[in-house]
């Protein structure tokens, strides 16, 4: 049979389309559908069970009048900035150190990476324990004789979010380091040589030449860190349960608490819609630029 006519578009690459059905379903039904569903019900006064009983923007008014939500947002911002900055900085520095053709690179890398294998639950527990003022670091140092030593981030409202960040960084920087290391390994050797011939000191080479060259790595890393930041939940639950008081609450926990503990789905949906909205504003344009268009990377 000679196909002289242009075949119907839908059936070209049929196999590829069939194979992509799980992805398409996930994208449309779960992500788009689920999101739309959530947004829709955020305008209702659903309590324990979702009900289409619309109350307009009530849930949003209440949300933004709730001190706990405002604290959560503030905490998320602090936590986000700390995670981003320190993950990137520490991850990069560690990667740069490991990239110096050192001995025992494998050992060091494994040490930095292993916390990533542990769940946030475990991480939270361990650090809760280490930061416990009676048994933990503070207790031990006081035991050594420095009795005025004070280090109880988990029990001090004003710095508790930093205490949580310590654990988060411990868990997450290993992966960032790996990504950075992979990126560094991808840099043309000649660039290093050129910089040495030019007499540019190591740190300047990193700062002015290598880092700008690693833009794609930083972007991938940013995506990974950022997606983790928005979702931070387990760690807080395991470490402080939001305490002391509500000092370490985060939005994801607010959503969870109000959806399930308080049995006020509408409120939870409104909060999650706000989270989504902020994510979308940042991510969608970026994702479009990065992955859309015709270019084949």
């Amino acid at each position, binding site marked *: 049979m000679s196909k002289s006519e242009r075949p119907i578009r839908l059936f070209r690459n049929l*196999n590829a389309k069939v194979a992509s059905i799980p*992805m398409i379903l*996930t994208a449309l039904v779960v992500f788009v559908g689920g999101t739309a569903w959530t947004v829709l019900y955020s305008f209702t006064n659903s309590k324990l069970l*979702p009900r289409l009983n619309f109350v307009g923007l009530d849930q949003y008014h209440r949300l933004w009048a709730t001190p706990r939500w405002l604290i959560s947002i503030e905490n998320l911002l602090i936590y986000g900035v700390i995670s981003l900055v320190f993950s990137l900085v520490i991850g990069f520095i560690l990667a740069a150190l*490991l990239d110096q053709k050192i001995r025992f690179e494998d050992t*060091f890398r*494994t040490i930095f990476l292993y916390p990533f294998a542990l769940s946030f639950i475990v991480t939270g527990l361990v650090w809760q324990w280490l930061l416990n003022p009676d048994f933990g670091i503070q207790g031990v140092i006081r035991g050594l004789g420095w009795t005025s030593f004070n280090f109880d981030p988990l029990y001090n409202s004003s710095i508790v979010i930093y205490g949580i960040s310590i654990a988060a960084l411990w868990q997450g920087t290993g992966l960032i380091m*790996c990504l950075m290391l992979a990126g560094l390994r991808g840099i043309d050797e000649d660039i290093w040589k050129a910089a040495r011939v030019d007499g540019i000191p190591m740190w300047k080479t990193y700062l002015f030449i290598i880092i700008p060259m690693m833009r794609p790595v930083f972007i991938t890393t940013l995506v990974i860190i950022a997606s983790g930041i928005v979702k931070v939940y387990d760690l807080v639950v395991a470490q402080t349960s939001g305490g002391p008081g509500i000092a370490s609450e985060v939005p994801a926990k607010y959503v969870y608490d109000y959806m399930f503990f308080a049995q006020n789905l509408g409120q939870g949906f409104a909060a999650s819609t706000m989270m989504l909205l902020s994510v979308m504003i940042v991510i969608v344009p970026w994702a479009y630029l990065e992955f859309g268009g015709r270019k084949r*990377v």
Partner: protein
Amino acid sequence: MSAPSGAIRADASEPNGPKPRHMFSRRNIFLYGTLILVALYYLLPLYVMIVTSLKGMPEIRLGNIFSPPLEITFEPWVKAWSTACTGLNCDGLSRGFWNSVRITVPSVILSIAIASVNGYALANWRFKGADTFFIILIVGAFIPYQVMIYPIVIILREIGLYGSLSGLVIVHSIFGMPILTLLFRNYFTSMPEELFRAARVDGAGFWGIYLRIMVPMSLPIFVVAVILQVTGIWNDFLFGVVYTRPDTYPMTVQLNNIVNSVQGVKEYNVNMAATILTGLVPLVIYFISGRLFVRGIAAGAVKG
């Protein structure tokens, strides 16, 4: 070859051969010093966990969490593994372990299978609209899980898989899909397109190319995917607790139960032993395949 001319005649004290390197040069002290300090910081929690898990409760009450155990006891380990109680169930983590295995293995396989096919379709068979779905997927990676819990309960209920193992496997596959698809797509995109074309000329179809050409060439990225998924799924708490029933609770839920079922004082040693036991599987995988992991990351993740 001639001897060098007089002007630069050799002199024994002149630089000759490799530049002398001191083992304790400033650079090395700084470099290794920093690395060792940081390594200590990273190891400290692990050390504390292990040490604590080997102490008896009386010793723990004495205070110093950093001091090595005076008397090593494996009691806490035994207890954590086989006798710690949650409610009426006093079989420790052991039951959770097998549940975790039963959850993790199919979830890892299914999620990687789906994601790799997705990545392959996106990289090599770009049909119209594929990009849109992909972008949705990537944005999906940022959606807090809490947002999705409820809709997924409804979806699972509608397809009748709620509470079953298959339901949980599907959930894991869905939430693993964005990052894994991104990883595989990047990896397959970085493979020479000519290979794909050659296979098409050879007459292989979509699945033929995938199974016989692409998969055998993708070991590094599969390793990365397996590591990420095993860690992610093994460590998952939220889905495990929401989408399963008590007799199929994974280890993390069991861990949470043991840790939070405080009977009198917290048994820190048992908790720590349970914690280590829970983290053991992903840890072992990391220790074994760390090198492949970095290589795979370099191949897949970094090229945006």
